[in-house]
């Protein structure tokens, strides 16, 4: 006869970081075809109260019956209550999300990643450079800087999209520029409609419009690889410090908490060591950009 052993360490009191919190889709803002802004609210008020994130962090979004995907946070931690995710229809999970009507439930866990070092950036000028979908995570940083306007010197946004129709948060940015104290430089590669009143030209051309003091400026850059290539070259030409150029990387963060290995870059994990890396980190890591 075999003895029945009793567990010495029952798991009841352990927090489970893999367990999503349920959230309701309160509004879907169809900003750009295949790139909607989803506004979410956690069902559990305790989660709403406890929730805090840094600009540049991400969440793991679960669509019940489909799976989970990492999504960067577009809302600012200064605006509590609603979590905003700007999501492109891309893979299985995001396609399933696009089929959900308003009021549906999704799972959210996080926030994960290091985010932008906002304490370290305080007291400096801020140059936010977004290319294409790079505006999604940078919008959080922009709102944060505007809500804590007194903490920063000059704040500048340079945002380039292919056309006005593909520009994320276009109306919001145009109206913010009218009332808030920041330099808002928007550009499009081309304007098929002929109604665009802002800049036309590639993103790096915006550097001619401004001067920067590299000794007192942090630059935050997010965009596709081509943007990094040309924007980083400009920043280095202007003598920006390599450890004050911040960039955010995208990989498939499956667990979000430094375990599953899928988001590794060189030998760092994007999910815990990043997704925000300095340019100095980047050039010291193999396979980063």
């Amino acid at each position, binding site marked *: 006869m*075999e*003895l029945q*052993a*009793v*567990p*010495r*360490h*029952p*798991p009841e009191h*352990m*927090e*489970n*970081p*893999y*367990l*999503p919190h*349920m959230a309701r889709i309160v509004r879907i803002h169809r900003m750009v075809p295949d790139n909607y802004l989803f506004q979410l609210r956690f069902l559990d008020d305790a989660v709403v109260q406890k929730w805090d994130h840094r600009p540049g962090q991400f969440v793991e979004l*679960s669509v*019940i*019956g*489909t*799976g*989970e*995907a990492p999504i960067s946070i577009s809302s600012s931690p200064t605006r509590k209550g609603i979590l905003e995710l700007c999501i492109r229809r*891309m*893979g*299985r*999970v*995001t396609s399933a999300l696009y089929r959900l009507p308003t009021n549906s*439930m999704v*799972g959210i866990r996080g926030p994960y990643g290091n985010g932008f070092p906002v304490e370290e950036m305080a007291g400096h000028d801020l140059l936010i450079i977004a290319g294409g979908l790079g505006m999604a995570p940078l919008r959080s940083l922009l709102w944060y800087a505007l809500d804590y306007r007194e903490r920063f010197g000059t704040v500048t946004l340079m945002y380039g999209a292919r056309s006005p129709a593909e520009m994320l948060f276009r109306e919001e940015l145009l109206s913010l520029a009218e009332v808030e104290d920041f330099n808002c430089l928007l550009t499009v590669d081309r304007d098929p409609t002929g109604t665009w009143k802002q800049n036309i030209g590639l993103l790096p051309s915006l550097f001619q419009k401004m001067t920067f003091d590299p000794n007192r400026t942090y630059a935050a850059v997010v965009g596709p690889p081509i943007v990094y290539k040309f924007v980083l070259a400009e920043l280095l030409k202007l003598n920006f410090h390599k450890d004050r150029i911040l960039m955010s990387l*995208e*990989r*498939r963060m*499956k*667990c979000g*908490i*430094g*375990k*599953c*290995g*899928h988001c*590794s*870059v*060189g*030998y*760092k994990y994007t999910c*815990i060591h990043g997704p925000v890396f300095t340019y100095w980190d980047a050039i010291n890591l*193999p*396979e980063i950009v």
Partner: protein
Amino acid sequence: MKILKLAKENLDLFVSVLPAFGEVYAPIKRGKEFVFERPSRWSDVQMKYTRTMLPPKKLVLPPCETTLTFDPEKGYRDLLAEASKPLVLFGVHSYDIYGLNILDRVFAQAKYPDPYYITRRKNTAIIGVDFVPDDKHLASSMNADFVDSGFDLFLSDIGNDYLVLVGTSRGDDMVVMSNCLMQMPTEADFDEYKKRSQLRRDAYKVHVALEDLPEILEMEYHSAVWDEMGERCLSCGSCSMVCPTCYCFDVGDEVDFGSRKGRRIRSWDSCLLRTHALVAGGENFRAERSSRVKFRYYHKQRGFVAEYGRPSCVGCGRCVEVCPAEINIISVIQSIRGERDGTASGAPASS
């Protein structure tokens, strides 16, 4: 540390107390291989074995594990309670204990403790046994030929007896429950232990130097050695499956037929497999085989040193045994050190 001794003839009696501490797993022979399994009778248990096919990670980080269930009405529920089944893992070699200690750093001592791993780990008692290295073990090079923690009991052969190190309070409970089977060791027993310990250390046939490896890896990042290995690698992932410290996993949702209910399952993955660095939209950051082979060794020998102060290899020799293309820790280190030409046999240099 409390040190006792157990007469070999009393081992059978002693192990009869183990089921009170959990389901017992021990090394048994299956075909030509050894595996950690539930022995149907104690005489099947191998006290002297080279290495098991899979390391003990299979019990604390199962190859396939359901972590959550989901239901459109109720959301997600965790299945943590199922991870708390007590186990006793008997007959673990020092390098495998070290392997678990390394997994602890990632899964238990890191910023986000993994509750499934921790629950299994805490409910798994470990009883170590000593071993004599063969021509594939390189545990001494990896400082994993002796361990001072990570076991409840550790048995070392000293002739007619085992010297028993008592590592935990649970280990001591086993001793107490066995009702005075253990005795106090004598000076002569310690002398015998020292003599055999020296013999075990001298028995290693493979040695690799680690000290300057992180720098050499930096220098050899663009070496043709990786391309040559990429040509040979079959991307089968066997090296990851058998590695005591490979822990990458994949996550997928399985849905019941005709409903939206289902479960979230995590399963072993390998950075050698083509889809490991694939992201939504189709971009693959490591589409080349050579980049995947390279990544594996940089993570173990370079990344772990940066993050945890030591490489994650424990020198078990399993990758030496299983890789069909003879790409393994020994051949890789020797190749990047320029100690062998890239197309060399891949078998341990000493054999």
